[in-house]
Structures are given as C-alpha cells and as structure tokens.
C-alpha cells in the first residue's frame, strides 16, 4: 500500500475580483514507504503549491483545493486545522528553499529544534535540549552543544539548512517533503546537503518527495520521477528509464537543456522554446502543444490521458501523457 496517494489534486487561486488561476490541475502520484520520489518541472509549474496543499500550508483563504491526498488511508485534505497540526512535524515534515529566511532570526537554534520535540513527543525542555544536540550532531553540525545557543545569523548557509533538516526529521516523520532544498546554496554545499538527505532518509526509512527543477539532483537521488507541466504530471518513470529513454517531448527538452561537459565542442544547448508564460490550461488539447516540436492537430484538439507506455517501460512501469512521444530506440 502506498504511503501517500495523491489523486486528481487541484488548487485554484481565487481572489475577489480576479480571474481564478489554476496552479495545480489534476496531479496524481504515489509515494511508497521509504521511497524517494522526484517532482520536476520548470518554475511556476505548481511544484510548491502541490507540496503546500499536501502539508495543509496554503493560506486559509483565497484558494480552493480539491481531489485527494491520502496519507496511510487518512484523507489529508479534509482534516480539520487541529488534526492537521497534530500531524505536521510528526508524520509529515518539510524543508524549504531558503534556509536563512526559514529560520526565526530572533530565537536561538536550540529552541527552534526543541519546540517541535516538545510539541509532538511530549518532552520536557531539558530532555529536548539533549535530544536536539544529538539531532544537530547527526546532521553533521560540529560542536552542537554550543550551536544550540546561537542564532541563525551566526551559522553558515549550509549549517542552517542542516539545522532545518534536523528540525524536520526530529520526530521521525514517515514522509519528508524537500522543496528545492539546495537552490539557495553554494554548489559545493549543494552536493553535501543532497548526500546528507540521501543518507538520512535511507537510514531512517523516511519517504522523500524531492522537489526540484534540476534534473541532476533527481538523477542522483530519486527512485521515481514525476515530470510536471502546467500543473499536471506528464510523464512518470524510474529514474534510469526516464533519463535513458525520455518519451515526453517536454522531458526530452529538459534533458537537452542540461549543460554537459562531454558535449562536442561548439554544440549549443537547446532550451525548450517558448516559456511557461505560454501556458494554456489542460481543458482542450495538450497544454504543452504550443511549445512542442512534435505537436499535431490531435494535440491541440484532444487532451491526452496518462497511459502506460510500453516503449518506455524498460525496468519498471512507465506512464505518459502524450499523443506523439519522442521516438526512441529501446536499449537492449
């Protein structure tokens, strides 16, 4: 049974006097216990909004969330604010993009770790402090006891993100959502943080949803990958299949636009033409059609369904939402 089952998740932002805006438009995906699942796509395709709606962190007003997000058979979307608060930080936790602004600048790191322990594990402040030092140690923060009394501005960027990871994993959640956890960090630090995350979720058996627009991150970390476009999943598969045999023209385009060191000299990067600005809703036809090199009349008229893709299923199941996939030779 899946740990998290997201079905037809839709988030519509609606402010008074404005046209409703569909940020997430029917997303489906599963996360198995202990599995690392990637959510990839360009900026604005709805990755963060998907995560926030699962966590119940969207603003209380001005949006409508429909569909289903089942966590161990509990429907998260219909939980009361109180029930959701009991689960957040305990059963599911999240790490965000910018570690400096994600920490409270005026209270010590120690309290920011212990408050979640006090809340969910019924610990006294003293016991929680001991545990907090242990947690900081486990995420590779040197001299953790001293760090407990320090403030966020006294830590480096990498250390801050480590502290936030410690906070998120403090209550041993079964699901961790990391929303571009390395985007704000130096390149050298990025690799360290990713390695740390990979190690921690492997050792603790925590499932991880890795949100990123960086396919390199996905390649190194994820078991399964969901490619999002215009608020919908357009392709899903194991990471080996997806990278070796990209079937959706959008996925193919994303892979083509990664700079490669082994590329022949003089070859230019080929970014996907157009931009998310050209986004059209998924109401009639494929939302990617205006930017797609393979688009035909059918693509504009008939909205493609998510169907198993035989040609792409090399090692595991592969799902694809496309009328004219990229022709690929299946490796032997």
């Amino acid at each position, binding site marked *: 049974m899946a740990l998290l089952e997201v079905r037809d998740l839709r988030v519509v932002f609606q402010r008074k006097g404005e046209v409703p805006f569909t940020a997430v438009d029917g997303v489906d995906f599963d996360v198995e216990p202990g599995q690392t699942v990637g959510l990839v796509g360009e900026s604005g395709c709805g990755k963060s909004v998907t995560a926030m709606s699962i966590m119940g962190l969207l603003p209380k007003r001005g949006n409508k969330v429909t569909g289903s997000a089942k966590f161990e058979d509990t429907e998260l979307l219909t939980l009361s604010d109180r029930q959701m608060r009991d689960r957040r930080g305990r059963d599911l*936790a999240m790490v965000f993009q910018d570690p400096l602004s994600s920490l409270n600048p*005026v209270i010590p790191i120690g309290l920011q770790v212990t408050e979640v322990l006090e809340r969910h594990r019924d610990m006294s402040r003293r016991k929680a402090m001991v545990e907090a030092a242990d947690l900081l140690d486990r995420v590779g923060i040197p001299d953790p006891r001293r760090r407990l009394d320090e403030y966020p*501005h006294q830590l480096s960027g990498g250390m801050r993100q480590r502290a936030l990871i410690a906070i998120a994993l403090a209550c041993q959640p079964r699901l961790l959502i990391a929303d571009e956890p390395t985007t704000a960090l130096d390149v050298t630090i990025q690799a360290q943080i990713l390695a740390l995350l990979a190690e921690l979720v492997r050792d603790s058996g925590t499932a991880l949803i890795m949100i990123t627009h960086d396919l390199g991150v996905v390649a190194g970390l994820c078991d399964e990958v969901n490619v999002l476009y215009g608020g919908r999943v357009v392709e899903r598969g194991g990471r080996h299949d997806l990278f070796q045999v990209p079937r959706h023209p959008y996925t193919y385009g994303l892979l083509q636009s990664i700079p490669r060191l082994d590329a022949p000299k003089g070859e230019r990067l080929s970014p996907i033409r157009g931009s998310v600005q050209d986004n059209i809703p998924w109401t009639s036809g494929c939302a990617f059609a205006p930017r797609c090199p393979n688009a035909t009349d059918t693509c504009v008229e008939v909205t493609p369904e998510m169907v198993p893709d035989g040609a792409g299923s090399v090692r595991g199941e592969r799902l694809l939402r496309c009328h004219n996939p990229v022709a690929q030779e299946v490796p032997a």
Partner: protein
Amino acid sequence: MLRYTVRRLLQLVIVVGVLSLLLFAWLRSLPGGPVSALLGERATAASRARLTQELGLDQPIFVQYWKFLTRAASGDFGVSTGVQPGDTASEIFLQRFPATLELSFLAIVIAIAVGIPLGYLAARRRGGWLDNLSIVGSLVGVAVPVFFLAFVLKQVLAVDLGWFPTAGRQEGGLDATRVTGFFVLDGVLTQEWDAAWDAIRHLILPAIALSSIPFSVIFRITRAAVLDVLDEDFIRTAESKGLTTPVIRRRHVLRNAMLPVVTTIGLQTGALLAGAVLTEKVFAFPGIGQALALGFERRDYPVLLLLILCAAGVFVLINMLVDLSYALIDPRIRTAGGAR
C-alpha cells in the same frame, strides 16, 4: 553594554547642554517678556527698568546664561515669575513633574495595552470587520485634536453623567499623605486606598484623551509589522512543525513584530508631552503641561527652561531604554554590538 550605556549618557548630557543654550536664547527673543507680563503694558518706564534689573535681564545674554549655568550646577534654577510667583522653579518641577509622568505613563500603558493586541488581531483578520473598524478608529484617533477629544470626554462622562471627576488630581476633602508626589503610588505606599483610587479616577479621562494618538500609531505599526511577519518564511516553517497557534503567535510572530513597535513607543513619548499641554488644560490637571502653557503666557523663563530641559532629558532617556530593549529582542544587533 556598559560602554554603550556610558556613551549614551554622555550623549544625554550633550543634548541637554546644547538644548539649554538654544532654549535660553530663543526664550529671550520672544516678543514681550516677564516684565511686561508682570507689570502690564502701561507700567512706567522707571518701574520697568527697576524690575528688569531685579531679574537680571539688563545684562548681556551670555552673562545671564553663565549665571544660569553656575547656579544650575548647585541646583538653583531660579525663581518663578509667572506660574507660581515666589516659588523656585525646582519646587514647581517637583510638584508637577510626577503628575505628568503619572498621566503619561497611564496613557502609554493604555495605548500599548489596546494598540498591540488590536493591531495583531486586525492583521490576523485582515480585511474583516474588526480590521476595518480599528483602522477607522485609529484614523479618528490621529485626526481628532487631543483637546477636542479631552473636552468631549469631560463633558459627557464627567459633567453630564458624573462618572468621573471633572478636574484636578485629587478630591479636596481627602487628607492624603504625600511621599513621592506620585499620587497613586503614595496611596499604595501609605495604604490609603481611597486616596489611590481617587487619584486613579482623576487620571482616567485625561489619560484616555492623551493616549489617542500614541494608540493610533502603535496600532498601525503593530498591524503593519504583523502583516509583514506573517508573510515571512519562518512562519511557514513554524506552521510546518505543527506548532499550536498561541506558540506561533507569541514566539514567532509577536517577537519579530515588536522590533518596529518598540521604536515607535519611544518616539511617541515625545508626542505625549505635546498632548499633555492640551489635555492638562482641559482637565485643570496640575502637571507640567499646564505649567508650560501658563509659563509661555507669562514668559516665566526659569520655569520654562527647567521643565523643557527635563522633558527633553526624559525623552532621550526613554529612547535610550528603547535602544537597549531593541538589543535584547534582536540578537543580530546584540552580537554586532558585542563584536565592536
């Protein structure tokens, strides 16, 4: 912290020193003067000259100022010519300063106690009826002249309904013991509860009138600051930990939102003095505001000089405390200062 405090105290001395010189010169440049105020316009030239000499006003201004400084150094600030002729300026100060401090303190407490919670609630329920109502209320609070508000409060609640006394600090019939000059505090110290309660009743209406502007400003700054903080990423982090709303409010929202509010409170204490002049007049409240108004009318140089200098000193002191508490709230300032 010690070096910082010493530096600020030195600043205080310099500010008061420079201000005393400017004030001294400015007061003497005003049209009229104590002589005309005391003798009237039709006095003979001879009697005018005699009084001018008696008051030492015939001497060059820098000589006057030097005399003022040397006397002030030994605690002698001169004798009142207009407010309470014959009393020394220091006596008047000791009588009246506690009255205004008591009044201003209650006013700022009201402004804080109402302004901060209301600002928080208005921000949380942004666009709701409470938010809109308080915004209108704070606009009215700033726009309505203090003396008009004081007058309406007095007319309706004191004169017409008789719920509060109309004037003064204490009922004449009460034989209260004086210890500090702060009437409420005196009542508590001597356990003369009726005197303390009576003093409080005299304070309530003027304090409400006086609190209207600081309340409005504190409310608006709190509301804006809370709105800013609610949008911060670390609030999202706090929510993602599943913390309860009271903890998030106390520990994460208010602590951060208080930084600009604390600064505002310091600045508002300056506005309090301006408001006190008007409020005390309406309620015949014997504080320094009333003395200042009277002092200006009668050109009472010694009283004006001492009262204004002390008010400025209090203002600088309070803002120094504000800076210190700022450092207490914000560790970024604390550590930056410590490194220096």
